[in-house]
């Protein structure tokens, strides 16, 4: 299996209140293509920072962040935006759907950046919503949907452009257990059936159990990697 995501000696420091805070510290990490990863660790361990770097939302102070064939460290803001629109799908804890748009329009949003006709965009959005089981809720506004349905729309939006990598930041943090399980099953299905590489930040061990592997971070350094299928640790 090829490494879809490679991090080499990645360091990221933030300045807060005049104090330098090293969030990622010489981090080395390889993630395989088509694998579902859970990213765990205590607060401040660098989980979200790592996710943002892999998603091209933030850049390392030093080191290599490579996703697919692209070295994100050499891209400027515009190039990163373009790259994100083509290669990454995001799922956020708070769903982050645009309230003034319907479910279908929310899913169509990232497709506006692709060279597609209006009809193609509509069809692609409808396909994504059907895939997440919301074919009958396409014209509903976010406020007319339940939390689980909103998150499924967000997942449909993340896969609408057919990116290879899906990044999810606490996607079940705002959901009850049953709804969370349904969303995690959906992510698992996207990984298994569509071979998407998924990196999911979570605090919840049960949520992490849906992933193939769990990466543990501690104080900006790699702790251990668990293989949830075999129970092996690396």
């Amino acid at each position, binding site marked *: 299996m090829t490494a879809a995501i490679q991090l080499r000696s990645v360091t990221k420091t933030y300045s807060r209140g005049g104090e330098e805070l090293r969030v990622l510290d010489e981090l080395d990490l390889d993630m395989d293509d088509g694998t579902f990863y859970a990213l765990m660790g205590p607060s401040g361990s660098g989980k*979200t920072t790592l996710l*943002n770097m892999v*998603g091209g*939302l*933030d850049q390392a102070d030093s080191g290599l962040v490579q996703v697919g064939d692209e070295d994100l460290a050499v891209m400027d*803001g*515009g190039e990163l*935006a*373009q*790259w*994100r*629109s*083509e290669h990454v799908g*995001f799922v*956020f*804890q*708070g769903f*982050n759907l*645009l*309230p*003034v*748009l319907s479910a279908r*329009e929310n899913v169509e*949003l*990232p497709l*506006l*950046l692709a060279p597609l006709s209006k009809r193609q965009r509509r069809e692609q959005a409808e396909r994504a919503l059907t895939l997440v089981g919301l074919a009958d809720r396409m014209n509903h506004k976010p406020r007319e949907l339940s939390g689980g349905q909103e998150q499924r729309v967000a997942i449909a*939006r993340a896969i609408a452009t057919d990116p290879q990598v899906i990044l999810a*930041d*606490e996607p079940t943090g705002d959901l009850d257990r049953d709804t969370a399980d349904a969303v995690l099953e959906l992510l698992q299905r996207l990984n298994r059936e569509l071979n998407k590489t998924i990196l999911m930040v979570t605090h919840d061990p049960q949520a992490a159990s849906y992933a193939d592997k769990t990466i543990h971070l501690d104080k900006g350094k790699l702790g251990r990697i668990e293989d949830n299928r075999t129970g092996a640790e690396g």
Partner: protein
Amino acid sequence: MPWKLLFRNLLGHKVRSLLTIGAVMVAVFLVCVLQAVTSGLSRTLDASAANRLLVQSAVSLFVDLPLGYQQKMASVPGVEAICKWQWFGGRYEQDKGGFFAQFGIDPETFATSYPEMTIADGSYEEFAATRTACIVGRQLADKYGWQVGDTVPMLGTIFTRIDGKPWDFTVKAIYESTSAAFDQQQMFFHYQYLRESLEQGGATGPDGVGVYMLKIEPGTDPLVVQRAVDGMFENGPQRVQTTTEAEFNRQFISMLGDVPQLLRLIGGAVLFAIFFAVLNTMLLTGRERTRDLGVMKALGFGNGVAAGLLIGESLLLCLTGAGLAIALGLLIEAPIAAVTASFIPGFALERDTLLLGAGIAAVVGLVSGVLPGVRAARMNTTQALQEIA
């Protein structure tokens, strides 16, 4: 640019959007009307005739000049004709709250001195031949439904009849005007009728003449006549001030202060107020959209789109307000013109004025959108996402 989102965002806060659009509409409407008033005044001055001079008391317009001055001024070289103008200040019996100007004039020289006035109905000759006759402007006749032959009872306030009854004037002609400087909401009657009534003891009122109009001969330098007339009465008994018609009108308007300047100041203040109101709305909107714009940037939309959405929304708000203001202005232009015809005969919402209104709205929209737009463009995506996490 996701245009649909632009419109949906605008509709997302209907009350706020409507209030902002309403505020812009009122401001642009006001600015357009003020501009139209200023232009109207300016047009009135521009339309003033160059061959007419007006002689008034050097003390005040409200001080009458002696009757004997007419004969003396007629001897000044270059003076072709003289016409008296005496403010009557009466109230129409049927509409005491209404206002229109009435003047006693000399029928023999009046028509020839004001060629911009044309008789549309009736006969000027009959007016000139009938002591108690009057001519009225088309707009005034239409307003009160007067026709040739009607009797118009006017209650004197400056010139009052001893018997307490109104003055009866018979409409002998209805005039129209081709000049912005010559109002169609006026009534003219014989000065002599007024004079005779005073002399015979049938009425009371001030002696003399308010203003003399001097029509000067072609080729005569108005300045020379002006100086000659002013010099003639330099030692009294009543000093005079002779001005061109344009200057006279300008002074008449400026009795209320520097009206155009005042209107410009009001317009400027309105614009500033509306600019801050729209800017406040857009800053609030920009702050509220941090979440949505952060998500959009995460999805791959560029900084330009984030800024464009806010600038576009601001522009749309302002241009919608301006559009409604222009529509409202066009709708009530005629009623405003009718109401203001007595003191601003040239009132009109011209194309340039409407374009100015739209332009101002566009500039306000653009400038108000730039600050939140730049903020949105510079906004750090991860911080925006952390704010909402």
